[in-house]
């Protein structure tokens, strides 16, 4: 586990009493923004939570509980409460998105070369020899709640990906709240949730990457962004990324740079952003509206589409 644990003071007006601490976990940098006195206590609590979640749920660690479950397809396996909780949420998300969010695509991700933590992944890989299979096998996972027993169908391997990260953020927020450690903002690689608001400001100013002036004042809830611009690599001469269309088992193709979503929880925001990106500019907005969520679609042509209650552009501030 690489740990950064750096404490730095952000440059922000009215935020001089705020500080930030960060560490590396779950394949990304996790940062906590809070007053110095809160951060001192919050950082180890959040870090220990993320370490436990990564050890349990990483598909890249051969000894994680998830890897053991993936290696036991066809056999009933009694799983821990943590893995059970995340699996339940992932299956609920799959149903809610009609399978667009598919937690059973680990084999397909491997087939296109996503075989290691992205920071250590070879970005120039040889051409693929295998064809990826479509998703949808998650519907055949057998879950027995009496003893938390899970049987994966042959051929299915789980990858929780972003939903596990979002749920870890939500759990960290709950852990801090239970100890009265607030205000705080927990940011796991851009998927973030807030607890209360910074003193003297009333909101958390969060910029959307790559858009000057698109700073959102988050008062309550979570914000997540999905897109292929960061996690992509070459397999032969084909550009690959991690957002798979479950219909084909291949990376979805869109002229969308990213989708940012505001939601009550970080897990919801992450799933909704990923789903909306895969659905694309035509169907994604209708999906968000149907779920009562708001978001920002950023096209490759620089066109922005604001959905629901996504903050309007303040007058006098151009993109």
């Amino acid at each position, binding site marked *: 586990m690489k740990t950064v644990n750096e404490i730095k003071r952000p440059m922000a007006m009215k935020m001089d009493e705020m500080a930030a601490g960060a560490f590396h976990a779950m394949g990304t940098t996790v940062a906590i923004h809070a007053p110095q006195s809160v951060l001192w206590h919050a950082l180890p609590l959040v870090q220990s939570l993320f370490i436990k979640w990564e050890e349990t749920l990483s598909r890249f660690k051969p000894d994680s509980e998830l890897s053991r479950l993936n290696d036991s397809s066809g056999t009933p396996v009694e799983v821990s409460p943590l893995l059970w909780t995340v699996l339940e949420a992932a299956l609920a998300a799959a149903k809610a998105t009609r399978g667009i969010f598919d937690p059973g695509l680990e084999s397909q991700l491997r087939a296109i070369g996503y075989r290691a933590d992205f920071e250590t992944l070879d970005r120039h890989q040889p051409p693929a020899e295998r064809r990826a299979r479509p998703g949808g096998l998650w519907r055949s996972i057998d879950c027995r709640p009496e003893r938390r027993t899970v049987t994966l169908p042959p051929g299915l391997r789980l990858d929780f990906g972003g939903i596990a990260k979002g749920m870890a953020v939500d759990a960290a927020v709950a852990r801090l709240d239970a100890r009265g450690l607030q205000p705080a903002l927990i940011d796991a690689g*851009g998927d973030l949730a807030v607890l209360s608001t910074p003193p003297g400001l009333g909101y958390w100013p*969060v910029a959307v990457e790559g858009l000057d002036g698109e700073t959102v004042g988050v008062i309550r809830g979570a914000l997540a962004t999905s897109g292929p611009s960061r996690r992509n690599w070459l397999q032969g001469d084909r550009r690959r990324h991690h957002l798979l269309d479950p219909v084909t088992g291949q990376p979805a193709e869109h002229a969308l740079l990213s989708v940012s979503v505001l939601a009550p929880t970080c897990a919801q925001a992450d799933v909704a952003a990923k789903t909306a990106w895969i659905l694309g500019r035509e*169907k994604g907005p*209708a999906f968000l509206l149907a779920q009562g969520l708001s978001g920002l679609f950023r096209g490759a042509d620089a066109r922005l589409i604001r959905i629901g209650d996504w*903050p309007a552009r303040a007058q006098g501030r151009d993109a």
Partner: protein
Amino acid sequence: MNASGERPSSNRERWLARVKRFKRGTLWLSLAGFSALCALSAEHLVGVTAQAANTPPASATTSPSPFFSPPANSQTGLGNGVQTVPQTVPTMPLTQTRVS
């Protein structure tokens, strides 16, 4: 009577007059039929359009699913909704979203 108000003088003229009346009748009948067809088609089209408008997109669910509307946790505040300042804010950002 012919077009000039005179009684037709021959069988041929009477026959031509009948043909003219028949043609006029056919024309009016055709116009009436065409209008009725247009009205029916328009009604059908309106109905089809209205039906299409009520049909949700294939990819969208018609109502929020349980995953996206879980019961709020009054202790932690999680699930209690999301709230932002209605417009983008001029404050220097504390952090930024990152594509993941």
